[in-house]
């Protein structure tokens, strides 16, 4: 059985703002899935939806099966138990994701006290272990977030995510705010820790190269939908969907800040989720769009072995 | 020519947009309606009740009459119509409130932006002075100022204006520092934006919601302070104000004899005006800065 099984997940705000539209994804235990896309494509919404962390105004439909249990229909008590113990999150921008008025040691210990009913001395020992795991001296437990560098704070976030030995970690742009050297270190650290402890990883980034480097499989998101999904190297080296191709061409190297805003060779802006184009949502920006693309939105279908794409060009030739 | 007309159109559009969103705040609309009505009454007071309602010598009624058809709110100890005085008093209360608040917020915004932007020893000295004013009990300072200066409306305005600006200054300074720590300010500085450019183009628009809501709050406070000073006998003795009416009522023994009809209307008038300004201010605040979620 898959550890995470997302079925036909949709997230809507207000009456017609669709942030996520019918996403199907699976992650096996211990495997690593990357989700790529421009900002505003719905990938962060997807991450928050996994633990039902979206504001009350968001409406969710579909299923999110975590170890066979649907997160969306869980009772509050069960949901709280699953949060962090079953799946934890490494958020982007750790400065704001950590509470500025609490020591980092207390913040790492908090889930231990909540989920494991650990005694304070035991929690403190575990915090020391966790900090060592992520390459920080045990004494840093007494520091406040503002006393740490960006890279150190992200290490704290990772230590915190590991606290309750979850089977799944969601990393939402874990390296975005960091400079290139630190980015690479943090990525190595995440890679090493999840493979050591056999944790499944969902990593979200705008940077296809980073994901291809770290993950087993890759999904490309556009306007709330998965438009391409397959083995990481295949998606990166030989993307089937025109958007996937544009995205992989946009990131020749890890962490070039200029390319974050506008992928190279891709004119226009990502569509407004409140007013999506007809047919294939990518057709207004697509370099190889056909007439049919304005009216037809093809489903995700096999384009190569184990590699799916949602484009008439890739699926049309293979009936 | 075309740039100017374009600019005007953009301004008109943004005012219209502001109004469309302000309209959705019911409490703010009530406040605005009340203010419009009271302002109309205050402006039309000479027509509505005549200029001689304040005259003690040829008062129309006898002392301390209960409400009647002729005097809907009764009369004071000199036989003057209380309704007439109430209408006339709106002029002083509104004028003093508006002018004092304008003075106070103007000083506070200027000091706050300068101190927040320049930092260093300049900010240290300016904020030392501001903090000093802030720890002064402003009402006591206003009372003392009103005591040592000659009794007039301008004294009251000055006393309120120069004792109440530090709150605005501190809030504006904090906001200025917060705004300037955002990355785009760094970018603007890197692109060669000067001090004046940063302060007027980036800081001022960002502190404006604060300043606007602070002004309306300030008007409420100023009106209350004016009433307090008048009640303590420190107002302009030649004009009728709501606070002065309350002082008269107390001196006429309205409390011990239970003449609530003498006491209630001026206080309600003060509260309604102060509340109306507060509601407007909060609506403005939430229109300009929806994240605050105030109003509604």
């Amino acid at each position, binding site marked *: 059985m898959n550890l995470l099984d997302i079925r036909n997940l949709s997230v809507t705000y207000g009456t017609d703002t669709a942030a996520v539209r019918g996403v199907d994804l699976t992650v096996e235990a211990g495997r690593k899935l990357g989700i790529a896309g421009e900002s505003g494509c719905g990938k962060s919404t997807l991450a*928050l939806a996994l633990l039902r*962390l979206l504001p009350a105004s968001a409406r969710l439909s579909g299923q999110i099966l975590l170890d066979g249990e649907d997160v969306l229909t869980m009772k509050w008590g069960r949901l709280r138990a699953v*949060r*962090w*113990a079953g799946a*934890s*999150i490494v*958020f982007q*921008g750790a400065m*704001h*994701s*950590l*509470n*500025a*008025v*609490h020591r980092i040691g207390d913040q790492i210990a*908090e889930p231990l006290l*909540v*989920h494991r009913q650990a005694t304070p001395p035991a929690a403190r020992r575990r915090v020391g272990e966790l900090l060592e795991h992520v390459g920080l001296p045990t004494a840093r437990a007494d520091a406040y977030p*503002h*006393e740490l560098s960006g890279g150190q704070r992200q290490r704290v976030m990772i230590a915190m995510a590991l606290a309750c030995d979850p089977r799944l970690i969601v990393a939402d742009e874990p390296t975005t705010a960091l400079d290139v050297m630190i980015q690479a270190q943090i990525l190595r650290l995440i890679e090493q820790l999840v493979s050591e402890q056999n944790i499944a990883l969902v990593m979200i980034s705008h940077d296809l190269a980073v994901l291809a480097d770290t993950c087993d499989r890759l999904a490309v998101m556009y306007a709330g939908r998965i438009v391409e999904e397959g083995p990481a190297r295949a998606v990166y080296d030989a993307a089937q969907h025109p958007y996937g191709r544009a995205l992989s061409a946009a990131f020749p190297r890890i962490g070039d800040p200029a390319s974050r805003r506008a992928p190279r060779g891709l004119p226009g802006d990502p569509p407004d989720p409140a007013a999506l184009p007809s047919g294939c949502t990518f057709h207004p920006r697509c370099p190889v769009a056909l007439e049919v693309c304005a009216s037809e939105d093809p489903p995700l279908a096999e384009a190569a072995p184990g590699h799916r794409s949602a484009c008439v060009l890739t699926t049309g030739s293979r009936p | 020519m075309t740039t100017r007309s374009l600019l005007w159109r953009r301004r008109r559009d943004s005012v219209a947009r502001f109004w469309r969103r302000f309209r959705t705040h019911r409490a703010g609309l009530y406040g605005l309606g009340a203010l419009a009505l009271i302002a109309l009454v205050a402006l039309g007071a000479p027509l509505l009740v005549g200029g001689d309602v304040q005259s003690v010598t040829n008062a129309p009624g006898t002392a301390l009459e209960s409400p009647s058809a002729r005097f809907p709110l009764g009369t004071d100890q000199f036989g003057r119509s209380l309704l007439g005085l109430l209408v006339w008093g709106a002029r002083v209360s509104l004028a003093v409130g508006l002018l004092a608040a304008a003075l106070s917020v103007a000083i506070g915004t200027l000091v706050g932006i300068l101190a927040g932007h320049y930092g260093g020893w300049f900010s240290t000295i300016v904020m*030392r002075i501001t903090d*000093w004013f*802030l*720890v*002064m*009990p402003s*009402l*006591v*300072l206003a*009372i003392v*100022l009103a*005591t*040592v200066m*000659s009794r007039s409306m301008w004294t009251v305005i000055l006393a309120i204006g120069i004792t109440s600006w530090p709150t605005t200054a501190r809030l504006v300074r904090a906001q200025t520092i917060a705004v300037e720590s955002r990355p785009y300010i760094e970018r603007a500085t890197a692109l060669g934006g000067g001090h004046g450019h940063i302060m007027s183009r980036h800081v001022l628009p960002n502190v404006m919601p604060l300043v606007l809501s602070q002004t309306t709050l300030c008007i409420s406070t100023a009106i*209350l302070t004016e*009433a*307090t000073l008048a*009640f*303590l*006998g*420190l107002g302009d003795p030649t004009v009728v104000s709501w606070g002065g009416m*309350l002082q008269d009522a107390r001196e006429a023994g309205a*409390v011990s004899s*239970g003449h609530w009809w003498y*006491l*209630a209307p*001026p*206080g309600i008038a*003060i*509260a309604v005006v*102060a*509340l109306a300004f*507060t*509601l407007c201010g909060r609506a403005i605040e939430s229109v300009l800065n929806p*994240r*605050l*979620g*105030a109003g*509604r």
Partner: protein
Amino acid sequence: MTTASASAGAVVERSGTATAYPRYLAGKLGGAAVSLFAVLVTSFFLFRIIPGDPVKAMTQGVPTSAEQLATLRRQFGLDLPLWQQFTDYCAKALTGDLGMSYQFRAPVGELVAQKLPATLLLTGVAVVIYSALGLWLGTRSAWRHGGLGDRLNTGIALTLWSVPSFWLGLLLIIVFSVGIGPVPGMFPTGGMESGDETGLAYVIDVAHHMVLPVLTLVAVGYAQTLLVMRASLLDEMGGDYLTTARAKGLRDDLVRRRHAVPNALLPTITMIFINLGHVAAGSILVETVFSWPGLGGLFYQALSVPDLPLVQGLFVVFAGAMILMNLLADLLYPLLDPRVGR
């Protein structure tokens, strides 16, 4: 709140502050001393900008002979050069000598000492009640903002905030002390005690006298705390760290108590201390209306004469109280917020 005070207690064992805090403390103490000096300067010169002869102003309305005026002038040191008057004034003020009240023929310091306990009792109780009420209602309002409870909460608070305190006091006296229609007068119209009680009966008597003035102060005062707490909590509610706290599986009330409130409390705490500083000055009107035998009532008496040495002395006392409370707020703040004062 509990978390905030817990981290305040823990400051001693924190290594980083061991050297930084004393320096911060010294700076704040020095600042307070400078402020106090500025108050003395202000009070000295403010009361000398009065047009005309201060002694004549002091004796306004009281028939005084030229001889008496000369004696008074000597008594107040007005025959000395200005700078010498000023140094005398400061030297005396530092030893607690704030001059003589013309009206009561008694030292200002003595009068203040006499009236201070009554004021501390009345406004102290009121500030504690309205701060607690404001924090509680403000937190509730923000956490469920936009709802009916929030709108009702803020609406009532704003309305009461707009009411002049002295007017509300007078109205309460008419309704509950004088009695109106079917309502009998059930509370005393003023004062602090009936005069003939001892022991427990005395305590109950004073409490009985306190009900209306405290009610007035709380009604008019709690809105400010509520609105500040509500606004700063709303500000925090978009914070990413709250999403982290929720993701950790914390219950909603723990997210609020342990994470959101301590952060939101920081801006509120300064204001609460400023309100405490008003313990001295904040109740001038209410004390006047309820004839409460405290500093505020004394100030009103001094104003109506006007007894300028007493007004001047009370100004220094009121300002001194504010400086003291602000100093306390400044000293407490870094213990609550680790980012400040290091």
